[in-house]
């Protein structure tokens, strides 16, 4: 399946755009998605940390991604 990964902050600079399309196999979890993203965008590994959000919620590593989920990459936040 094809998913769209939204990018914010420095992740947008790393991707060079506001979102990217990624092709995933069935039952891909967050941990695997991070591996795939890091392979395509090695600069992600240089970040202090980053989280993945699924449908507006921080997602644990074992959460499985479904078609239609809104996926976003959340680099270290710095609001306030």
């Amino acid at each position, binding site marked *: 399946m094809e998913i769209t990964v*939204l990018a*914010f*902050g*420095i992740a947008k*600079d790393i991707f060079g755009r506001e979102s990217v399309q990624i092709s995933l196999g069935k039952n891909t979890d967050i941990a695997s998605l991070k591996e795939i993203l890091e392979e395509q965008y090695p600069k992600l590994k*240089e*970040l*202090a940390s980053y989280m993945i*959000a699924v449908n*507006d*919620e*921080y997602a644990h590593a074992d959460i499985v991604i479904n078609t239609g989920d809104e996926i*976003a990459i*959340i*680099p*270290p*936040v*710095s*609001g*306030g």
Partner: protein
Amino acid sequence: MIDILLSTEPLDVSHCINLVQSPECGGIDVFIGTVRSQTKGKQVVRLEFEAYERMAIKEMRKIAEQAMDKWPVHKIAVHHRTGVLQIGEVPVMIAVSAAHRDAAFDACRYIIDTLKQTVPIWKKEVFEDGEVWVAAHP
């Protein structure tokens, strides 16, 4: 009562305070974040804030709800700005009313500290000679 706002417009400090006023309350604790002119001795030209809007609003509300559960407070307003901010402008403002001041102080402190850790908002510092996303790298 919880009032959450994420806005590209300048934050209205007195409006935010008025929102949490209540006859049952003995006090209002207010935190106002302001844009500082220097970071680590380097002159800042401006800040640029970006948010994952829907999630940011959701996370700000969660924090306010947690504060309501933890302390006997009446009303909470959490307002955050996005876009380009100049030195001295207000990117964030929190107002908490309570019958007694301890709860208001504690809740307000908890809200700003947690907001800085969990709410998906990002700040870019722009200098004369470059720019950096705050906290991005170790």
